[in-house]
């Protein structure tokens, strides 16, 4: 079905270092192949070769031959490739052309010029196969990340190509949506589609994938059947820089250190959207101060609203946060908490890393700023423009400005979405570092590994209410794992 022989590629601008060198790979019809490896190893580049974006959209130096169903992709115009290969991308925010779900599903078929009746039949089939009836007739901008990704899969399903390429599709998904995604992929497999997935999170594909292709520095280093892959020991996976293939072996890291008896007291944590729909209904809650607290729950459980309320970003919010017998009203919360956003591009404003840190200080103090940069391994970048840095470096700049603001509460929104093992560990070390500085750290996350590595306390939200809230050491492992593994498929 797909045949790559001696393919090498180098991006034209050279900034994206993740080129490919001498790739030879053949994939049979009906196979599900998992591409994995550290960030920058070339998995995304490989997917772009298959869907034709290379060389037609991203230009560069390409050699070798890429055949799909016996035809050379690099010589075929993109619109022709699009009838054979469907793609799902990482960012659910930026892969929709229309603004409503129905037209979105029709879009690919409309471009192929199929008849209107046929398109409608196909859409109905997609709706019943993927169980997305409740998502029809909706505005794309009102959907959650998981729902958007479902629609993205639906678009591919409607166009019904033989080959489907997914590039880190689960990065922004909660456990429930990830589960649904794995069902969709299994469905494609049952229809004898050829599926290629580039991914960091492997566990949800454990029982679906046929083959695991491990890449490093633009080369294929290992090809394993899934049975062999499952037999890899934890430390072998670790050495390859891969996330675990199953979650049930994870246990919380032993943390020494005393529990801090001081508390962050939250009261009046109720919030409704303008539509009147209740988003948060907590009332009062005590969280331990000076610890790393994980907030878990599915999309729509109120996690983001909770974080926004803590930061004082919801204008109508009436609740209070009490730390050290000092009570902060909503407005004062703005000066008490700092959120490192999921998309850090939104919160970096200045022209140089050093300025960025100074901007957060009440009085500019270059020495102190340098010390903070040093502690986060950013000192050598201080002159550079924040936007020229890599994703991980940008995140560290945002963290540096959080530290510089001297706020007690630092909130992270999905700090490890789409990160490989090495970068995830890097982030978890920084989180611990922040805790050692005496900060209270709150992490909103779907990443069980990160929780196991860092968190001492877990707050589980469900339908806007507290489902459970306790120290990890008091929780049974099964209870925590249960949330991540025993998700019922929704819809």
């Amino acid at each position, binding site marked *: 079905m797909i045949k790559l022989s001696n393919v090498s590629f180098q991006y034209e601008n050279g900034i994206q270092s993740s080129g490919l060198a001498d790739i030879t790979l053949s994939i049979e019809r009906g196979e599900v192949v998992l591409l994995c490896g550290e960030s920058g190893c070339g998995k995304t580049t490989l997917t772009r070769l298959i869907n034709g974006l290379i060389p037609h959209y991203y230009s560069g130096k390409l050699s070798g031959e890429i055949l799909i169903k016996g035809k050379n992709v690099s010589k075929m115009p993109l619109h022709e490739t699009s009838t054979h290969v469907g793609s799902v991308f990482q960012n659910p925010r930026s892969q929709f052309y229309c603004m409503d779900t129905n037209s979105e599903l029709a879009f690919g078929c409309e*471009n192929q010029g199929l008849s209107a009746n046929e398109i409608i039949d196909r859409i109905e089939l997609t709706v019943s196969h993927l169980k997305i009836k409740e998502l029809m007739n909706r505005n794309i901008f009102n959907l959650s990340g998981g729902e958007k990704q479902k629609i993205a899969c639906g678009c591919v399903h409607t166009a019904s190509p033989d080959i489907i390429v997914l590039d880190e599709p689960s990065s922004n998904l909660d456990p429930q949506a990830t589960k649904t995604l794995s069902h969709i992929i299994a469905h494609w497999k049952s229809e004898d589609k050829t599926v290629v997935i580039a991914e960091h999170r492997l566990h949800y594909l454990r029982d679906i994938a046929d083959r695991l292709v491990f890449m490093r520095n633009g080369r294929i280093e290992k090809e394993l059947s899934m049975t062999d892959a499952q037999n890899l020991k934890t430390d072998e996976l670790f050495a390859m820089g891969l996330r675990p293939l199953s979650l049930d072996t994870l246990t919380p890291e032993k943390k020494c250190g005393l529990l801090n008896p001081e508390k962050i007291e939250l009261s009046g944590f109720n919030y409704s959207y303008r539509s009147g729909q209740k988003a948060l209904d907590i009332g009062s809650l005590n969280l331990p101060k000076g610890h790393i607290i994980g907030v878990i729950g599915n999309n729509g459980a109120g996690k983001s609203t909770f974080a926004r309320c803590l930061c004082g970003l919801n204008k109508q919010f009436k609740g209070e946060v009490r730390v050290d017998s000092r009570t902060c009203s909503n407005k004062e919360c*703005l000066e008490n908490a700092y959120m490192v956003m999921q998309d850090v591009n939104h919160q970096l*404003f200045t022209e140089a890393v050093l300025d960025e840190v100074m901007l957060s200080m009440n009085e500019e103090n270059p020495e102190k700023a340098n010390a903070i940069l040093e502690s986060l391994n950013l000192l050598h970048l201080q002159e550079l423009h924040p936007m020229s840095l890599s994703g991980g470096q940008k995140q560290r700049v945002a963290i540096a400005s959080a530290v510089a603001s001297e706020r007690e509460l630092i909130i992270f929104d999905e700090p490890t979405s789409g990160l490989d093992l090495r970068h995830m560990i890097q982030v978890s070390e920084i989180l611990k570092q922040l805790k050692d500085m005496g900060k209270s750290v709150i992490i909103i996350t779907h990443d069980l590994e990160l929780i196991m590595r860092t968190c001492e306390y877990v707050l589980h939200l469900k339908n806007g209410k507290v489902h459970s809230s306790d120290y990890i050491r008091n929780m049974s492992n099964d209870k925590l794992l249960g949330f991540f593994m025993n998700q019922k498929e929704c819809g």
Partner: protein
Amino acid sequence: MQDGYMQVLADKSYIKLDPRTKIFILLIINISAFTVNAWQVIALAAAIPLSLFALSKKYYITAGFSALFVSSLLLYIFLIDTTFSAVSIIVAMLTGVINRMGPGLLMGYYLLTTTTVSEFIAAMEKMCLPKQITIPLSVMFRFFPTIKEESSSINDAMRMRGISFGKSKGSLLALMEYRLVPLFISCVKIGEELSCSALTRGLGSPVKRTNVCEIGFSYRDLVYFALTAVTLMLLLITKRI
């Protein structure tokens, strides 16, 4: 149609017009707003979008903007000619902005909230415009909500970091920069990813596109075409004089 799958409107609470009618109205309103001084034409231009909102039962918007337009028109007609002072210059500027930009903005808002991208593309193709115009315009169309979304996240980040007007950190110029630079960067990135996705779904294929959504003229379109044509005629007459 089966199950009514394809009968989508971005916001169903509004009355429906064909996208071509809406584009035509928007065009004429904007031309008249910037070329004429006759208050009759301006009033008519404002009345068209207002009547659309009224027919859609958006009474608050209708009443609010009617009051705004009427008072600013009255001020424009009676104050400007009788007095001449610094105050009247300010009033003239203010009413000028409201009278000239208001109707167009209101119509633009109506167009954006009631038209889906696919309807827009269908309309453009029925007018036989080439792909080179249709595709960029439809992308622009789609980008407004994205800009709104991105801009509100940036606004949150600014509030959280305590950057706002009036504080030592915020000169007006710096504030503009802080707001616009991240916005541009986000939009460029989203635009790039968007084109990738659209291309892998066959946009730009030489095959004749199907349009599943149905657009077509109704008696309402006829009425509004007539109204707009009257505006256009008035415009031409006043220009001639």
